[in-house]
């Protein structure tokens, strides 16, 4: 991940009510904290527009079953319950990743073939108004 991408995460972080965010993949990762980390702010913070979609299991991310078309793209409108990808958990076994609600797939955080942890954010969804 380059500095520009980290800046993007940082500006996203500032727009949320989160005070700290950690991300780790293999041995690499980062932790970011806003200046509010130590003390709760005294003013209201608008809720984030984005909903993270987390990995349902530890394993390898794929966009689809082998030989099947890719199910989603960054920026695409998706329906509630729509399949976005899957996480291979063992021989011939996988766990589907689905959209929790309808909206725009604002950000894709994962590549095909990437090893992912349980609960790792794979996508950020901007739910339909």
């Amino acid at each position: 991940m380059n500095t520009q991408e980290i800046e993007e995460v940082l500006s996203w972080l500032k727009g949320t009510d989160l005070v700290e965010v950690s991300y780790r993949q293999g041995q690499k990762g980062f932790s970011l904290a806003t200046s509010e980390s130590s003390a709760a702010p005294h003013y209201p913070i608008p809720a984030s527009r984005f909903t993270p979609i987390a990995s349902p299991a530890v394993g390898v991310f794929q966009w689809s079953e082998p030989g099947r078309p890719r199910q989603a793209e960054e920026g695409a409108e998706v329906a509630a319950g729509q399949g976005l990808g899957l996480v291979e958990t063992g021989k011939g076994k996988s766990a589907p990743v689905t959209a929790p609600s309808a909206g725009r797939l604002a950000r894709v955080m994962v590549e095909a073939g990437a090893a992912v942890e349980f609960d790792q954010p794979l996508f950020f969804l901007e739910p339909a108004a």
Partner: protein
Amino acid sequence: MFKKILVSNRSEIAVRVIRACRELGIKSVAVYSEADRESLHARLADEAVCIGPGPSRLSYLSFDAVLAAARMTGADAIHPGYGFLSENADFAQACTDAGVTFIGPPPSAIRKLGHKATGKTLAREAKVPVVPGTVGLVDKNFMKDALAVGFPVMVKAAAGGGGKGLRLVRDKSQLESQLKAAQAEAQASFGDGAVFIEKFIEHPRHVEIQIAADKHGNIVAFPERDCTVQRRHQKLVEESVSPAVTPEIRRRMQESAVRLIKAGGYTNVGTVEFLFEGGEFYFIEVNSRLQVEHPVTETVTGLDLVVAQILCAAGEKLPFDQTRASEIRCHAIEFRINAEDAERNFAPCPGKITSLQLPGGAGVRVDTHIYAGYTVPSYYDSLLAKLIVSAPDRMSAIKRGLRALGELEIGGIHTTAGFHKKVISHPDFQRGVFDTHLVEHMQADEEQTRANDKIQAAR
């Protein structure tokens, strides 16, 4: 030697194994559930992978999740710790199939020795004493069988479990009626009325022999651990050596354990458990893993059992021989500090640890994963820490134990630390003359005292 070991466990034992890896210059991988994000093991390891949600079935017990984490981190061996997947022969096989070394005995040895019934058969073949009883099922000759075993006897259902079809018979006049009752109960509960007769061991101690075996045929047995202080078969205090075992009995127990381990084709570390009464010992079962109380033996001998496990699994020779393993360098006592309320019948007590002061000084070892601010999750067992004290003799170790337990302060939750002080202050414990009923008796005495106090207060 391995380059990277994944530890498929949590809590203090994961911390223990990660420390051994670091000392050996081997990279470590921690796996953790969502409920264990704040756990120390995930922080201490070189890498950490979240493998699932809180319930162990979906994380620490999931073959797929553990093996996926091993694949994604490139670990070449898996240390299972104790509990969870540590005695699962199918998991050991799955590791082998996935090209990862399982740090433990071969699956065949887990199957042979790790299961009570097959273990007992093998013990008989290896001339290891077992609780005397009928070898097959009881038939018309039940009176002759019972007299051969010697009263008091237990009548047990072959298909048994949960105390069903179980009868204590003190003398021969009751045998026929109790046997019939047990058979009827077994028939009703399990659809199988078959029963067998076993000698009733009324005042047993629990004494066990730690062994280590490499793949070159070297097997060593360590001095015994005495784990007689138990509550509902849960060990609370363990010590080595046993105040009840003589050097002659120790030698016989060690020889028996080695014979059994050899017969089972067992390698890596393991423990042979015995009941002990009146100078006689009887095989109960083999624990085919590292045990919670392993630091007692490490402290007494000055050897490292986790390092021995790793070396054996990597196909190297044991770094010590029988003579070295037999050295008794001090007396050691371990206390299991659990998140339980001893005043409320040991009810589990998860929650946030608001402050923490660990004991220290000479002869004090603490193995733990907790820290001030840590929240004890409710998903797992309640072991918070193991406090191990050592001194040149048993009485000095008891005094050191009282001192160290007094220094220990865990704020925010109830723990068993105070209960341990009562145990080792008890005259029977201090004399070394007690059996597995000690805790029951202590609880009954306390109940009595409380009742008496109430009567006094009412007057």
